[in-house]
């Protein structure tokens, strides 16, 4: 625990306090700036996660074909993994960046809890975290009021909970890869509502400083997605509408992408390499070229 605090929690706590001084003691503004900085810092991981997720979604029709084709679970698993390999997509690619960000999130939550605690005991606890630098010491006590909120207390006005709900929903809607698999669709549908509701519920339970962080983090996430999305415009109308309100065929193309059904089917990986247009991103194209040359070597033999 000591190492965890030393490496993660304490530096984040002190960074928050330094930012608080820079923004003239508006701790709420410090949280917002800190959230933006953290999201920018982890942006390469987030982008990788988005791209991995999109790549996986484009391969869904073929995966389903494989699942139908092979009844034996072991064989099915082997063929699926083989297909992923051929396509140059790591199915865990969207999980790894999230795992890396995990300790940062937890440390940030802890840092916020320490800094916006508000009680005399938590102020004493804060003294143990701060570096003994005059510039940092002069920030204490931190200003807990921000807009209509006391950052150390839950926001009972429901405004913050609503912002968290809405921003989580939009981010979730953008980030969920389209799928034609009914089971996955059903899970996605549930998560699409469950996650925002849970975040909104937790916003009512935890210090509103955390709610500000969640809301800001979501908003930055949406902006990031917008820029990571590529040249095709996002159809915001369909993003903001509940999926049930949109025709089933349009669900997959809500972000301006063609639905998997509209795409060219993926060739059987055992016989043919994966088509280039199914693999977004230059990295994947590079891997495909590698696959093709391997195929040529096969031919030569």
């Amino acid at each position, binding site marked *: 625990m000591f190492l965890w605090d030393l490496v993660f929690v304490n530096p984040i706590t002190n960074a928050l306090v330094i930012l608080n001084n820079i923004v003239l003691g508006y701790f709420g503004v410090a949280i917002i700036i800190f959230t933006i900085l953290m999201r920018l810092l982890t942006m390469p991981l987030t982008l990788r996660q988005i791209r991995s997720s999109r790549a996986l979604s484009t391969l869904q029709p073929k995966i389903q074909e494989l699942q139908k084709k092979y009844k034996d679970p072991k064989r099915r698993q082997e063929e699926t993994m083989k297909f992923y390999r051929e396509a140059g997509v790591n199915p865990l690619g969207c999980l790894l960046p999230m795992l890396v960000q995990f300790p940062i999130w*937890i440390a940030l939550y802890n840092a916020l809890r320490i800094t916006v605690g508000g009680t*005399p005991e938590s102020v*004493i606890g804060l*003294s*143990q975290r701060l570096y003994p630098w005059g510039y940092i*010491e002069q920030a204490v006590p931190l200003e807990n009021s921000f807009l209509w909120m006391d950052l150390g207390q839950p926001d009972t006005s429901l405004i913050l909970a609503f912002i968290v709900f809405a921003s989580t929903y939009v981010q979730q809607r953008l980030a969920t890869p389209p799928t034609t698999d009914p089971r996955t669709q059903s899970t996605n549908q549930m998560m699409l509502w469950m996650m925002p509701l849970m975040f909104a519920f937790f916003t009512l*339970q935890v*210090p509103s400083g955390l709610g500000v962080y969640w809301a800001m983090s979501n908003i930055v996430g949406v902006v990031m997605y917008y820029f990571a999305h590529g040249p095709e415009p996002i159809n915001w109308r369909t993003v903001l509408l509940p999926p049930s309100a949109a025709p089933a065929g349009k669900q997959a193309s809500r972000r301006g992408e063609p639905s998997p059904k509209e795409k060219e089917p993926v060739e059987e990986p055992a016989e043919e390499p994966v088509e280039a247009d199914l693999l977004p991103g230059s990295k994947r194209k590079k891997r495909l070229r590698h696959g093709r040359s391997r195929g040529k070597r096969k031919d030569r033999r």
Partner: protein
Amino acid sequence: MALATLFVATACTRIAEPKGWAGPTLADDLLVASIGRGELAAVDIEDSSGRVTRLFPLKDQKHPDGSKIDPEAIYSTPVVTDGTGYFGAYDGWLYALYLDGSGIRWQVETGGSIIGSAVVQDGVVYIGSDDGKLHAFDAEAGDLRWQFKSGDSIWATPLVADGVVYVASMDKKVYALDAASGQEKWHFKAKAGLASTPVLADGTLLVGGLDSRIRALDAVSGEERWYFKADDWFWTQPLVLGNTVYAGSLDGKVYALDVNDGTPKWEKPFDTEESVRAAPLLLDDVLLIANRTGKLFGLDLENGQAIWGPTDLAKTVLADPLAQGAMAYISAQGGDLFTVNKDGEYKRLTLTE
């Protein structure tokens, strides 16, 4: 994954709840102390049965507007004068209690949580609040005499001497106010918030701060005479004995400094290895120190060496201890009450309602 993050995060991020650190106080044979979070009781120290009389809150006690009393926590050590106990609570109310357990004599609301203790002098109750004001109320009826607005919360207990109220504020300033009118005489600005109760020693005002400094100010002009910097904040009320001021710091060390120039008197400060918030106390000829984790030490006044200790109460101790002859009463967070003698022998008092 995100859900797991959320669960873990929220499990780790419960809202910090105020627990309180009200110290014990003595009125003749009646010891008034916290017996739990936001609860006060009185016990006759001559009565070995340990039976307490609940003072606050009593069942169905209400504010004047009819709302139920919920003090949340009590940080304010009660002050007892003429059969009435005065204390502020985290709910922002200042209460005057009858000590026989018959209820509230009067109650008045300030605009913020009350952390510091009240001072009662010449029929006036002085108390600071999180609303940034120092309030002066009539001790008999609770009528407001005057208010002084500082720039931030007032968590420190004021000091009243020679018609002057000295109070430290989280706005980084120490104020000297006219006790009768609340008019400002002078103020001194430190480098960080101030939560420590000042003490006066021969025209020198000593006050610790969250800038890790203990300062000596001229009590008449407010000019700084000297300061001493530790490795962490000073939140304890210093103790002055002769020409020496003793103060514990949140860096876990206890310092002995010359009142005249701030030079250390001990070869090195005594290290308790945990934050010290409770004020040092003289027990006969032993300096009693309690750190946050409940470890007690008896120090030699001359050289700062431990005569005994650590004696481990295994409880969080943040409240100032109370001396009664060669024995001290110590309130631990959560309501446990201990006695300790000058040799470090302690006893937990078993209290029953």
